[in-house]
């Protein structure tokens, strides 16, 4: 057992008893950490209000060697995203970020760049209107790239032949050439507008402030939703709440 310090984002939490909570923390230094916070439900504790969902906090925890839950001993609020409390699409998008970080990553597999991008994303949510979906899409592509799941966008995901728009296969892992498309059961049409947006965001995630039609935004949401579902092995819980 060793005492560790980290900066963490609370991505899941559930009550364990009348006074304790079990939390999933996504830390910059260690990746995903699951810990028991004894007394975490009490107002006057070593955790104050730091264990609320999507709160950034500085934590101290005892790492268990046995593989069970770690023990959280201290948590202090570093940042709260008030923008998620005043804009419903931003609230849902924030919860989706938490779901992806919690369920698409492994324990003790740190990704500091992804942690920083998650915080930037959460800060930028709120008041974006129709751009909320694109900001989220940009985060998803960064996350997929960081985890080694980047969709193939410039060559056929099956035969690697150069190809652009046409169709997209979530199971195959990206765009498909006309020949391979026939063999992929979940291949769906990919419009040139949607393809160029995906390429632009994959090349430079900061390019999310783009004017797009509702049709293309909806199309992008559907493709990424299916792609993430395939990588996750199930449909994300937040998917029905997201808008394009």
């Amino acid at each position, binding site marked *: 057992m060793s005492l560790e310090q980290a900066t963490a984002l609370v991505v899941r939490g559930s009550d364990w008893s009348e006074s304790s909570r079990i939390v999933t923390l996504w830390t910059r230094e260690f990746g995903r950490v699951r810990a028991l916070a004894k007394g975490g439900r009490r107002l006057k504790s070593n955790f*104050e209000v730091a264990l609320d*969902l999507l709160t950034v906090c500085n934590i101290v925890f005892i790492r268990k060697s046995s593989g069970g839950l770690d023990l959280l001993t201290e948590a202090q609020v570093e940042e709260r995203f008030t923008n998620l409390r005043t804009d419903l699409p931003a*609230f849902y998008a924030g919860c989706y970020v938490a779901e992806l970080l919690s369920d698409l990553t492994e324990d003790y597999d740190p990704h500091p760049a992804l942690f920083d991008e998650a915080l930037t994303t959460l800060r930028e949510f709120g008041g974006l209107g129709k751009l909320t979906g694109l900001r989220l899409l940009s985060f998803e592509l960064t996350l997929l790239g960081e985890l080694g799941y980047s969709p193939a966008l410039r060559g056929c995901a099956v035969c690697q032949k150069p190809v652009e728009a046409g169709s997209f296969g979530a199971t195959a892992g990206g765009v498909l050439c006309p020949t391979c498309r026939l063999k992929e059961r979940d291949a769906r049409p990919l419009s040139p507008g949607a393809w160029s947006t995906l390429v632009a965001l994959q090349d430079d995630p900061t390019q999310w402030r783009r004017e797009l039609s509702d049709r293309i935004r909806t199309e992008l949401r559907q493709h990424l939703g299916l792609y993430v579902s395939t990588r996750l092995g199930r449909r994300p819980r937040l998917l029905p709440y997201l808008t394009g």
Partner: protein
Amino acid sequence: MASEPAGAVERLAAALTRLPGIGPKSAERITHFLLTGDRDVAAMLAAALKDVIEKVHPCRECFNLTEGAVCRICSDARRDGSTVCVVETPRDLAMLERAATYRGLYHVLGGRLAPLDNFGPEKLTADALLRRVQRGEIREVILATNPTLEGDGTALYVSNLLANTQVRITRLARGLPSGSTLELANAQMLTDALDGRRAF
């Protein structure tokens, strides 16, 4: 998968461990108390449990727990029918009633918006609240969901739902607890108290 306990005693102990705050040892102690002590206590408890299961249901107006069609608060003519306080659970309602300062009506949502736990807006009784508001007698809706991200998200959802009605929507104040000192307050309490300061 764990096999089902064989005898009645084991089944009772197993059932007790499903209650909040009761572990296997406490369950065993309670089971033996009920078996070896006064049998009337056990019978009384069994009857009370049966009554609760069979007779208690949500109030048709506010979804508070009641034995009648309408709860005692909704049927109390002395309560202010122009104000409705929206809470997550009947337990929250009971806590507000304990404060004995609020004289309006309530609406119990039946939980909080927690999509990560598969608890979406369709599981809330928010549509019933909208119908109550549309009847025109309510002037103010006080959103008293918990001051957590999910509680605030729930308040936001309800507020958006009621946006096209004429009702005034307010949110419970947050900040310093009365009788406490600044020294004992945490940073968030102080921030909330400063944000919510008012003329003195």
